[in-house]
């Protein structure tokens, strides 16, 4: 239910962005060029890789095989890299005087990627708990915890896929078909 709700809320975010982009094509096109596309690409690859690690870890928990913890820790490390790169990106924007008040593009950029970053931090908390706190002994509770943390992490990944496409790849293009 939580994941379905999150998907619907972010759908509204994506559609809002597309709507306001259609109202201010030039502003969005110019602002899109001011994003660091290299960091966007790096963060996408980092999150995709983290999803692989988490999926491999969850399989091991589900099947009662040992060796899941290194995968969860690798996923957690990817989450930390993502957050660090986002901090670098935000810092660069602020140092150039670009804030959420600059224009509608950057208002949505900071709002939506900021909300997503909060999700990354929450998901990282789940992976950290699985890696360092939760009992390693196989149990239905541990399987359920791993499944839920894994599903949430994949949600974080798939939401970023669309944020990356909208803001960094398609965000400012003039194309009308």
């Amino acid at each position: 239910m939580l994941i379905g709700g999150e998907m619907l809320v972010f759908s509204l975010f994506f559609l809002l962005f597309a709507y306001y982009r259609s109202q201010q094509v030039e502003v969005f096109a110019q602002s899109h060029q001011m994003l660091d596309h290299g960091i966007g690409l790096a963060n996408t690859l980092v999150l995709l890789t983290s999803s692989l690690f988490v999926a491999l870890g969850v399989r091991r928990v589900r099947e009662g095989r040992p060796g899941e913890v290194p995968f969860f820790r690798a996923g957690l490390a990817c989450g930390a890299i993502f957050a660090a790169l986002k901090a670098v990106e935000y810092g660069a924007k602020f140092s150039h005087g670009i804030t959420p008040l600059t224009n509608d593009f950057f208002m949505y950029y900071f709002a939506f990627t900021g909300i997503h970053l909060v999700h990354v931090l929450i998901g990282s908390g789940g992976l950290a708990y699985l890696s360092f706190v939760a009992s390693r002994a196989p149990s239905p509770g541990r399987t359920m915890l791993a499944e839920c943390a894994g599903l949430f992490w994949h949600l974080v990944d798939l939401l970023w896929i669309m944020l990356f496409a909208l803001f960094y790849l398609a965000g400012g293009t003039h194309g009308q078909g």
Partner: protein
Amino acid sequence: MDKGDRGLLGWWAALVLLTLLSFEGGLQWLGQAGAGTALVLVIALVKIRTVILHFMDVREAPWALRAPLETWVVALGAGLLALWYGHLA
């Protein structure tokens, strides 16, 4: 690493390949910016569906769970493309 793990590795490689293909320059062979934008959005939706089916294991879920998620992907894509190309704006 068993067959299931290798499957996940294969899907991850496909996702990375699609990401690099949709990055700047990867779609220049299309020639037109508009068509490139549409393809960028479609590729993103394909990647999202791949994550849902293969990382979230929805491919093995009952149809009652899978159908709403498949519908969500299609509806989101239709809404985004319609707004992007000015049909709803």
